[in-house]
């Protein structure tokens, strides 16, 4: 039985995990960098230990230091959160080798899904539709041009090891592909240590819809329905909702089943998310699998009533799933708005001192926050500082509550994307459910060409 969990992460997700630890009577251990000394998650933990300097290689990615602290403080499990070491197979392996439970899937599955090329192959084998594209890595720009002929433009050029939109670019012609290929391969090499590239057909008017799954070590798996995460900027999510305003009940059921089948075929354990692109005709294609808890997991918790972190711990403890698919239902509608410390027009980061951070509290309003008033936001980490989650009986109710809450929100001292979030929520196309991955570019912030 897990009785003490070290959280190898920071910010809002560390706070979120600790809340469930407290509820379950499990001790929590925070590890933090010099840049996060004053952070709420450090205060909230039962114990906290300094990792090192602010830069991630010396702190949140410092595997040896984290394992050393875990052993010395007697933690019997590590929760990796999202980002950082959460999808690092060798970290998971080292945890297990040290006798510490890694709260997540096995390192083998993580590594297979970490390579987008391998993941596409595995899903194809499991009979999950994949976006038309290359089977294997494309090694040169000449080869890319050749392959592009058979796929047809527009094409998404992607790094196999990519994430967070890095090493990824849409190209419309041979000329653009030639320019983009080496540049993105180089970026992927420097960011991920792997420059392997592949090509996928760009699906027009696509929606990004993902399925949350939970699977135990005995081959049982369930899905917790979908999250629609189409509203994005720079290929990163900004507003998510559950359920999707677009899917028919038939497609919802089919996608859920497909995700459960994929999880079983992979021998997947713990919480995971299968991301799909869905076209205007409700055809869905596997995009990637995230082998960890997602940033936007709270909207699923809000509509199902399930604590996903508690389920993760239960599965890691070696227990079988207590949930049955037929018992799971969708109740109401939830929306998450990610609050980023950035310029709402250019999306450039805006680190600095938050003087006022005041978001109204109330029924059906859930705030997951990394910051408080009088707090210094450093430039070392992701710009996401908080998540505002609202719930309603209907989508319309949830949207109204989101607008109302954002209008009363006061954040001063740094720039945030709150004005953009309001524009999205108030937009008639958003209210009509016309959410595609190009929503922000199509309706609010058209791309400027240099």
């Amino acid at each position: 039985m897990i009785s003490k969990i070290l959280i190898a992460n920071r910010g809002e997700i560390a706070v979120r995990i600790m809340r469930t630890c407290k509820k379950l009577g499990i001790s929590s251990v925070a590890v933090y960098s010099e840049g996060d000394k004053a952070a709420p998650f450090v205060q909230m933990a039962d114990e906290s230990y300094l990792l090192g300097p602010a830069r991630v290689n010396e702190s949140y990615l410092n595997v040896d230091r984290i394992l050393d602290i875990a052993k010395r403080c007697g933690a019997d499990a590590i929760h990796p959160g999202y980002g950082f070491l959460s999808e690092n197979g060798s970290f998971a392996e080292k945890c297990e080798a040290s006798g510490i439970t890694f709260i997540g899937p096995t390192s083998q599955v993580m590594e297979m899904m970490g390579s987008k090329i391998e993941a596409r192959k595995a899903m194809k084998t499991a009979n999950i539709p994949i976006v038309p594209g290359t089977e294997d890595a494309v090694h040169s720009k000449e080869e890319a041009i050749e392959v592009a002929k058979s796929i047809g433009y527009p094409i998404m050029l992607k790094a196999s090891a990519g994430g967070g939109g890095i090493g990824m670019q849409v190209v419309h012609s041979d000329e653009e592909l030639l320019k983009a290929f080496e540049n993105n391969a180089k970026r992927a090499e420097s960011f991920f240590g792997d420059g392997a590239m592949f090509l996928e057909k760009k699906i027009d008017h696509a929606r990004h819809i993902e399925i949350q799954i939970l699977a135990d070590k005995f081959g049982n798996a369930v899905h917790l329905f979908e999250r629609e995460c189409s509203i994005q900027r720079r290929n990163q999510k900004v507003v998510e909702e559950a359920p999707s305003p677009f899917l028919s009940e038939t497609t919802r059921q089919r996608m859920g089943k497909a995700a459960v089948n994929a999880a079983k075929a992979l021998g997947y354990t713990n919480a995971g998310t299968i991301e799909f692109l869905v076209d205007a005709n409700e055809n869905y294609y596997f995009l990637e699998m995230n082998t960890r808890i997602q940033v936007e997991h709270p909207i699923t918790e809000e509509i199902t009533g399930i604590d996903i972190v508690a389920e993760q711990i239960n599965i890691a403890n070696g227990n079988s799933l207590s949930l049955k698919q037929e018992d799971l239902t969708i109740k109401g509608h939830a929306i998450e708005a990610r609050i980023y410390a950035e310029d709402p027009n250019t999306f450039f980061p805006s680190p600095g001192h938050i003087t006022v951070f005041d978001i109204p509290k109330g029924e059906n309003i859930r705030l997951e926050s990394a910051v408080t008033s009088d707090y210094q936001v450093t430039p070392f980490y992701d710009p996401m500082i908080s998540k505002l989650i609202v719930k309603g009986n209907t989508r319309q109710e949830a949207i109204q509550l989101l607008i109302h809450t954002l209008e009363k929100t006061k954040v001063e001292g740094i720039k945030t994307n709150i004005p953009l979030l309001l524009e999205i929520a108030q937009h008639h196309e958003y209210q009509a459910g016309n959410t595609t991955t190009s929503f922000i570019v199509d309706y609010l912030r058209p791309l400027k060409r240099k």
Partner: protein
Amino acid sequence: MEEVRAMMAGNVWKIVVSEGEAVEADQDIVILESMKMEIPIATEDGGIVKEIKVQEGDFVNEGDLIAVIE
């Protein structure tokens, strides 16, 4: 003479020009890394790079001097 300054706090990820080099208006001088994003910092005016005040890996605050263009 133009002073190129950091528009936000971050690390100097890459210096893309050398001292003595001729640069055009809007040409990138350094690339900062802030909040996991690369931010190119450009000169408004063209000229000769007289001095580069930072090194790769340095931390700069908003408003810090990065380079002088003459």
